[in-house]
């Protein structure tokens, strides 16, 4: 490992996941989408489902999922990914089906679709990325925007009297009988990344074992729209975001209802 080249590599300790396409992403510096994509790709590899997967892309920064994850992908209208995924899974129950959605997509315009997909116990997996803002459209208030947080549409800070409260989707969906697994994770430290990957593995296993709906909510950064340096953005996730959106597993079904 020395720069003099004396150490020879005998065994790779880290490689690009097979399911992650070898291209530069369009994501901003300090954005967590790249890390989350990698975790998803690693889990696809781990369970050997790459050639058996259909991903559903959402509207927003994550729409380019199909450029980065090397699986078949269908693009859904804004918020509708869980309904599209339902249509895919019902037509091909033997396939591995996942959506990848942001907070505007899943927790605002798409609340109906995700709640009913969960409530039906659709046997699919949702990767939900919560960065408390609309990234692609330029940093407007999201349903997950924290109280007091300034965005381009809450220039004086989010006020619960006019804008309501940040919505806690992992907890909300955990309350539904059809949900097999619901967890909230973060990827701001190496330890968190390991835990996040374990949660995605659990969510994938739920689907592979036919247990029903699984969701992993990621607390994620948006340094560009937060107006923060990447390192400060990590601090925000570890600080006020994690305080309002506690990390943890909110639901873990041990056995399928119909077993």
């Amino acid at each position: 490992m020395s720069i003099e080249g004396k150490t020879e590599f005998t065994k790779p300790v880290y490689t690009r996941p097979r399911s992650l396409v070898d291209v530069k992403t369009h994501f901003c510096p300090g954005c967590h989408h790249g890390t989350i994509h990698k975790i998803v790709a690693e889990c696809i590899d781990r369970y050997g489902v790459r050639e058996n997967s259909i991903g559903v892309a959402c509207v927003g920064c994550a729409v380019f999922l199909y450029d980065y994850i090397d699986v078949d992908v269908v693009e859904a209208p804004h918020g509708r990914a869980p309904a599209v995924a339902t249509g895919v899974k019902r037509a091909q129950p033997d396939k591995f089906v996942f959506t990848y959605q942001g907070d505007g997509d899943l927790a605002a315009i798409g609340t109906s679709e995700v709640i009913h997909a969960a409530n039906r116990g659709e046997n699919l997996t949702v990767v939900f990325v919560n960065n408390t803002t609309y990234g692609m459209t330029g940093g407007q208030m999201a349903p997950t925007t924290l109280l007091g947080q300034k965005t381009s549409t809450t220039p004086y800070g989010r006020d619960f009297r006019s804008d309501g409260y940040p919505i806690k989707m992992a907890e909300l969906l955990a309350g539904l009988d059809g949900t097999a697994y619901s967890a909230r994770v973060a990827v701001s430290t190496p330890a968190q990344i390991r835990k996040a990957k374990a949660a995605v593995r659990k969510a994938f296993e739920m689907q592979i074992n036919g247990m029903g709906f699984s969701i992993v909510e990621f607390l994620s950064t948006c340094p560009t729209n937060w107006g923060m340096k990447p390192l400060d953005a990590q601090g925000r996730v570890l600080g006020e975001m994690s305080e309002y959106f506690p990390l943890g597993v909110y639901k873990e079904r041990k056995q399928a209802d119909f077993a």
Partner: protein
Amino acid sequence: MSSLAAEASKKILLKGNEAICLGAIAAGCRHYYGYPITPQNDIPEYMAAHLPALGGTFLQAESEVATINMILGTSASGKRVMTSSSGPGISLMQEGLSYMAGSELPAVIVNISRSGPGLGGIAPSQGDYFQAVKGGGHGGYRLIVLAPHSVQEMYTLTMLAFDLADRYRTPAVILGDAIVGQMKEPFEATPYDSAATAEKPWALTGCAGRERLHVKSLHLKDNAIEVHNWKLHGKFERIRKTETRAESFLLDGAKIAVVAFGTAARVSKTAIQWARKEGIPVGMLRPITLFPFPEREVFDLAKTVDVVLVIEMNTGQMVEDVRQSTPLHDRIAFLGKPCAMPTPEEILDRIRALAGRKG
């Protein structure tokens, strides 16, 4: 084969909405998603009862918005899929239909239309003509639109709708109404010609043994969206050239030509037969495809008759396409009956008046 389909191998009395289900099942549709709305509930109820036994999927969605996106997902999987609804529900599906047209996904959408705008009423109407034939959602596209006027046609045109949707990779609409959906007529199940079934190499089935595939409507790079729009336009032009269908009814020697579709055409047939008995030379051109509209047929017809009488169960929508098809606008007359079925007597009176006017 379902019990109803087995019975239908001989002539039976059948409701229009049920004929759509038999046509869909005969054409290999095994996936149905929908949401309740009057006057089309016979369709989801039939599918709920029969699709599971055929190894298919029936799912009652939380909304028509979700419905059309489930349709999108199943269509992207390469499977034949159908939904049905009525005006307000079809409006909610327009977002998804735009995405499906953009993503080039086939499906069959049944509109057993009712009165509008808004909640309107449950009376039969042809007020959804514009929405169906002009695209309906954002962005510029067309839907293939078929207009059955009998229970038998509810069956045959549903089978045709699946074939056309697959052939051109775009959604096809059955535009019916409360009358043609709810009425019962003698019906005979004709066999489905599966030779017309299109291959779907674009379907998302997992990337085993091939490169990954995408189904999408977003085109951001360079002028890709312009190129895509021209490609879609070319497809719609091919549809215009090759798929126009219309029925000529008693047009030999006609000096008055009715142009009507669906239930309005059905009622007109009675009135035309009565008028013929009175010696009035009247016939009808009945568009079976509303998109593509039989423009050439209307153009030729208008040159040979004194009056083109457009009859619709609305205040005048298809009449605009008739006007666009011929420069002879002073020959075009209109009889509209919004949100109700015109009676044969009303139509006969108008035909008589037109015959008298021309002396």
